[in-house]
């Protein structure tokens, strides 16, 4: 009877920790190999300059939207008197004075438009029209560690983009880690910003959002759990590559996935990155519990036999 109870306990713990699983599509996306056109750069270290910056103090910084705004389908660039309806939706979450779904480059000629893990690039013509341009932008965190998705690319300069990334648990209800990535467009290299100096709580990861940049690209304004933080980070210098792209030629003129830069399946190419096996954390926890229960069981069993 007791043996049955142990088995039941073991089974229930297994069920408990295996209750949810990612979809095949999600697993494939997170474990996709690094695309041939993409190279991975070393992390860019970020250090805190000031915490709890008051709203308005960062006035000398360029907002991540570059002054563009948007609704669910419209883009406005007030400085150029542009108000255009697009044929696709845009990230829009309600109040949107800062333009959550769009980002205009400092030269005012390139507009990034985001919808979830899709990003469009438009050239802003002198006529005020927007012309779509094919572009490669990653939406998966290909570097080491747990894998997540990259959202909302924005222009830090005319050639450097920055975006937030989110690593979720398998259930899809919690964020394990928030990150920020930089993408140097010409070299097509992706680098994570290293926030280890900020001493963020790893057990309860704070929300992390990019708000703006200094013109010389050495400082960045972040919103961490609702508080504005000024950080020093060299976004201008090209970080040293961790790994050279295997086939640069395939990246040039690449059409697939370029229209809106979906991360899948166009990024499923070539060599495998440091892989994250789906469910590894939960399996680990289940394993620990299994060992503990077995140990307890054996101890009880020994007591029965030898006492």
């Amino acid at each position, binding site marked *: 009877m007791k043996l049955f109870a142990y088995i039941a306990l073991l089974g*229930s713990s*297994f*069920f408990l920790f*295996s*209750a*949810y*699983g*990612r*979809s095949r*599509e*999600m697993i494939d*996306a997170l474990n996709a190999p690094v695309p041939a056109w993409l190279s991975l750069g070393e992390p860019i270290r970020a250090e805190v300059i000031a915490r709890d910056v008051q*709203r308005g103090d960062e006035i000398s910084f360029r907002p991540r939207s570059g002054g563009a705004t*948007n*609704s*669910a*389908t*419209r883009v406005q660039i007030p400085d150029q008197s542009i108000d255009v309806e697009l044929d696709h*939706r845009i*990230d*829009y*979450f*309600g*109040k*949107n*004075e800062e333009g959550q779904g769009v980002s205009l480059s400092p030269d005012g000629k390139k507009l990034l438009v985001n*919808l*979830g*893990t*899709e990003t469009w690039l438009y050239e802003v013509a002198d006529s005020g029209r927007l012309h779509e341009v094919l572009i490669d932008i990653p939406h998966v965190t290909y570097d080491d560690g747990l894998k997540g*998705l990259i*959202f*909302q690319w924005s222009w830090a300069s005319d050639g450097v983009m920055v975006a*937030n990334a*989110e690593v*979720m648990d398998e259930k*899809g*209800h*919690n*964020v394990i880690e*928030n990150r920020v990535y930089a993408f140097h467009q010409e070299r097509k290299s992706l680098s994570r910003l290293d926030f280890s100096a900020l001493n963020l709580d790893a057990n309860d990861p704070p*929300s992390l959002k990019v708000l703006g940049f200094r013109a010389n690209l050495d400082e960045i304004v972040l919103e961490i*759990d*609702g508080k504005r933080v000024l950080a020093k980070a060299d976004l201008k210098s090209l970080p040293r590559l961790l790994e050279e792209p295997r086939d640069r030629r395939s990246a040039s003129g690449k059409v697939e996935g370029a229209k809106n830069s979906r*991360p*899948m399946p166009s990024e499923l190419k070539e060599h495998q990155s440091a892989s994250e096996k789906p469910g590894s954390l939960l399996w680990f926890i289940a394993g620990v519990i299994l060992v503990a229960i077995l140990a307890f069981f054996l101890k009880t069993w020994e007591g029965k036999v030898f006492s």
Partner: protein
Amino acid sequence: MKIFVVLSFLLVSLSKSQTVELLTLKTSPTPNAVDLEWVGQSGKFYYLQCSADLEDWNFMGVVDAGDGSVISYGFPTNFTSLNYRVVIRLTPPTGDADGDGLTDEDEHFVHMTNADDADSDGDGVDDREEVVAGTDPWSDTDRPFYVLEVTWPSDVVVEYFLTKEFWVLKADEATDPDWWIGLSQVDVATTLDLQLKSFEPVDGVTTLNVLNFRDRESAGADQYTINNIALVIPSERTASPVEQAENNPLPELGGYAGKWGLYPVSVLELSPKVKDEEGNEIAGSEKIVQGRPLGFFVEIDPHANRIAHRELKVKIGGPLEDRKVIWSLDVLPGATPATVRGEWEDSPTHKDRFEVSAVYGISGFNRVSQTSGETTVAESGQTAIRVNVPPIGLNQVRIRIQIEGVAGELDLIDMEVPAVVVIDPGHGGIDSGAVGRTDNSVLEKDLALAYSLKLREELIDKFKDERHGFLVKMTREDDSTLKLSYRAPVARDLGADIFVSIHFNSALSSSARGSETYVERTPRNRNQAEDAGLASLLQNSVVSAIQAEDVGGKHRLTFNHNWVLKNNLPILGVKTAGFVVTKDGAFNNGNSTDFHPVRACLVEIEFISNDAALNAVKLSDLRGIRSKDGFSQSAAQDILNNIQDQE
């Protein structure tokens, strides 16, 4: 009398976007009645037509958008034989085909009027005017009383317009120039129907004490009262008794020379404009509305403002230049709840009911805070003020405008803080969430989206039925991937009252089932009791909806019974967790701007890893459609009740 309902089986291409096609219609066995029912396909829009001869088809004013659920329509009929057909369009009804000022969509979905006929009931009044006036656009005997003609003393014509922007009492130009007038105690409309009244001339009386006009459909609740109506004095009658009166001298007022008139206050502009769920400004939102829903208060920036407000620019009249205007604000008579909830003092920056500019200007306020609203009529006859109200959904207030030295109000403006609800369909895009165990075509993200869209539809219907202002925002409306941490801030940025995240559950054990609802755990949750109150309502609704289709539906009991007991809440199936989307930190709840806490919960409808539960919720099964509809209808009522009940 037996009814022969002939259902046409036509498949006729009428245009690229409109077809008539064969449908299997369920008809009613009830005599003298027609009861039709069919499954509306997503992306199609259904219109019902009838014909006696199969040639001349008449639009019946029924339309619905297909969403995979059953469309039902029933009506009585005296015809012994009539043909019905369903017209299907592939494009939504937009535009204004009959030019009556109502969009086709509103005519079809909201007012049920004929989109192809500006005057559905043929009573000579356009549908829009009837909608504004609150009369029945399908009844030619129920029409607005726009003009009352009263003959007094011989040729005077009194015109009454059913709009507060244009209260006019005027004398006909042909009136004998020698007559003069003083009106005393005019009391009109003591019943719900406006009546003709004779005005008795009284020499030397200078003011109208009370003039009441009542909206017929709300006896008393919407009673418009104007006291001390100023009279427009023709310039050639400067010696009129009105001006000579000692007790209440009035200035000579221009603008209506040659006529007698009530002194009108018209709202020129409300700013800022209201934006819809898509972030686009709503045309006409700068104008005050008549009747219900009331005019909107808005929140520009809930982070900094934490107050709902609107700036009002009104025209009172040039002759009153430099006169002081006094503004006051109270709860709207008959409002539910009968109080203005929240405290102005809780707002970090706008603690007063009114804010005015030091110098009147068309744009901008210098924000000279004061507790009593006082402005001065400019040379243009205009004045402006900013009105602040605690941003609690469905707070309803009446703003009174008075002229210093004149008893009673010059005008009343009724406004409301709209209810704001954010619905969050879980997962999406490449993140499918859970997968149906015995039917892997069923994905959590699809179910969550379908249930959420239906809930939105029911909420919109509910708020419209109750004539409330509202904003229902979805975090996603399609199959797009959405960053988890972007979801809750939608509610924060909109100053939402409620955030509801819809999910479906899964477990390795195929026997696991039941419904459960999550709120954030303490100590981080600053308003857990409020969250739990909402959660318990929705939890009961979802269990009832599932149980109606499957006897196995049940509350998935919480392990945390102590929390249930501690909060004295009869909550079954309500649990606590640290899910990102329900975190108060993401809503800014509990910070220094703890003024408008968002109530949030995450509903796990059922386990799609359980075969019986899956069949009770999946949309390829009629039971699933009924579960979706049942939950959505009940949850919409829950949400409305919860917003009205919040303190």
